[in-house]
């Protein structure tokens, strides 16, 4: 769930709780206060009634052992005095109850005071009631009111919270979008601060920037390191290889030593190839190439086909070129050549004898793709996943693979903004699709 929604929900829930709580509190206290008020009145009435006991009307009823009942006009109050079982010791205790009483099919809820008293050596039960309809009405009004307030408050809160948090979190999403999602290379990181008045976001922004700074410094260091190491290694290799060649010139050399010299030269050559590949990757990643050539893809493919023809013949491969479009991209010609060379070279290297290599292209919405398919060893999921890693080698009969070919492909495609996709089925073949971005 988004932080914005979470915050809004939290706010809403707390507000609901507060409103409910205050509503309940008001309801309860209103009941309590009005009952108290009513009870005080009832006690006063009781006192007054008891004082007026000797009044003609009431004493008449009592003397004749009858029930005295008196309702006022709207039946909002009543007094009932009826004889009870004789109890010589009555207390001044009073009891309050809430009851529904009916009179003339008109039922009402009353708060009733009951009291036992002795009068002329008889015990009577006095009940004084007051209708509490008005209190109940008030209660239901408050209930409705609370509900309405609750709903309105909820709606308002939710909307205002959503709007406010959206506004509040805008810099946060901006930081995420601009500083994390859109940055695929720490070297191109945008150090400009995102405008915000929230300190926390400033902190986030600053820490991301300083982290990126550290990362890009490490990147630069790594690139420099590779470039330097490669340079520093090529000269010693040159010395050793020259030395070996000089030793080979000696005429008294035994055949065994000569073989060993040549084997060593070969090893040195491998080393040279590895270093040159690493150097190339590092230079590409260092943006040390320019992209000013107009490179015609079909032309490059044709050139590579010619170059590799004898290797294809050797494996008796069938090479089919189905390129339909004359498409040029702006880039670095030698690099594009190396890119396609490595891919086609791989499809030769991992192909079966008498296999095929097919090259297709397509143009859709100004986006040009080239598809190179072979009928070779193929790769499984894990191998595809790791194919672009440096020094990743697969089980093949080829001893001279250093696992750098596809790493070079990766850096050149990244440099030219070309999308590369490998799909492959084990033992069936591999399809490499290059999609050229129109702006190169």
């Amino acid at each position, binding site marked *: 769930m988004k932080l914005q929604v979470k915050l809004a929900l939290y706010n809403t829930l707390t507000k609901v709780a507060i409103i409910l709580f205050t509503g309940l509190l008001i309801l309860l206290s209103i009941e309590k206060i009005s009952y108290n008020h009513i009870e005080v009145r009832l006690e006063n009435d009781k006192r007054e009634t008891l004082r007026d006991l000797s009044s003609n009307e009431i004493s008449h009823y009592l003397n004749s052992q009858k029930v005295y009942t008196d309702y006022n006009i709207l039946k909002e109050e009543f007094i009932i005095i009826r004889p009870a079982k004789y109890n010589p010791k009555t207390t001044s205790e009073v009891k309050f109850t809430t009851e529904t009483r009916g009179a003339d099919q008109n039922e009402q809820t009353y708060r009733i005071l009951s009291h036992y008293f002795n009068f002329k050596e008889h015990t009577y039960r006095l009940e004084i009631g007051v209708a509490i309809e008005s209190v109940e009405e008030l209660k239901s009004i408050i209930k409705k009111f609370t509900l309405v307030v609750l709903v309105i408050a909820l709606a308002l809160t939710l909307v205002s919270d959503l709007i406010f948090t959206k506004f509040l979190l805008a810099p946060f999403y901006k930081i995420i979008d601009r500083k994390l999602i859109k940055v695929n290379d720490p070297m191109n990181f945008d150090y400009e601060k995102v405008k915000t008045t929230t300190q926390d976001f400033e902190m986030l922004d600053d820490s991301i920037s300083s982290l990126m700074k550290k990362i890009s410094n490490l990147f630069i260091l790594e690139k420099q390191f590779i470039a330097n190491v*490669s340079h520093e290694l090529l000269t010693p*290799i*040159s*010395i050793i290889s020259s*030395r070996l060649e000089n030793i080979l*010139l000696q005429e008294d050399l035994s055949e065994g030593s000569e073989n060993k010299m040549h084997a060593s030269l070969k090893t040195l050559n491998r080393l040279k190839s590895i270093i040159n590949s690493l*150097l190339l990757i590092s230079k590409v990643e260092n943006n040390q190439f320019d992209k000013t050539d107009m490179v015609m893809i079909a032309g490059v493919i044709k050139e590579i086909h010619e170059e590799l023809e004898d290797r294809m013949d*050797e494996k008796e491969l069938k090479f089919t070129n189905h390129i339909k479009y004359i498409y040029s991209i702006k880039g670095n010609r030698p690099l594009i050549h190396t890119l396609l060379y490595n891919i086609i070279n791989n499809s030769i290297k991992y192909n079966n004898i008498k296999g095929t290599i097919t090259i297709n292209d397509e143009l859709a919405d100004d986006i040009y793709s080239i598809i190179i398919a072979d009928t070779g060893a193929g790769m499984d999921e894990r191998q595809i996943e790791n194919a672009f890693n440096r020094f990743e080698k697969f089980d093949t009969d*080829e001893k*001279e693979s250093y696992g750098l070919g596809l790493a070079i492909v990766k850096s050149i495609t990244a440099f030219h903004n070309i999308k590369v996709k490998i799909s492959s089925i084990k033992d069936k073949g591999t399809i490499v699709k290059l999609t050229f971005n129109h702006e190169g």
Partner: protein
Amino acid sequence: MNVLIVEDEKGLALEVDEFLSHEGFTVEHARTKKSAEEKIFVNNYDFILLDLGLPDGDGFELLKMLKGLDKREDAVIILTARGAVDDRVMGLEQGADDYLAKPFSLNELLARMHAITRRKHRLESNDIHIKGLRVNIQNRTVMYNDERIALTKKEFEIFNYLVLNKNRVISRTNLTEHVWGDVLEINSDSNFVDVHVKNLRKKLSQYIPIDWFETVRSIGYRINI
């Protein structure tokens, strides 16, 4: 012919020196830009083998200085660890005659020096005579008497390289690199060089016996004259 090696790596300079001396060159050695400048002012050289990264400056500056001098015909071959195409282009455009990336093969260096010499002196010896065959470097043909032996481009390259390096064992790696170029991830274990050599020998043997075209087991090839 005299050669000036401008190279701060003493070890490498010594090896090149030893090799070229063995081939009959007179070799001098400068380890810094400054000492190279002094030597260049005093002497004319047939070849200057120029390293780009010098302790006290860039080899390109030496090249520029040299090209600024009058009446100099010193051939310059740049030797450098900077092997990228752009560097090569820059080196050649600034007036170098050739460009070799480290680590280079001494045989290739020698072959290139020979090629420069031929170009410079417009030698008749675009023709190399070998056992009744005539190899023309310029037209890239091999003739037997007046008959042209039909070789493919690659076959000619291989034969030409072996002839230029006659009496010397040339390894498959070396041959591959020379003929197919400094291709990344090249498969030197693969036998495609052998296929070409086999075809080449078959074609040649139709004209003359080729016992002088020797296969050195597990290493490479040698043309014995």
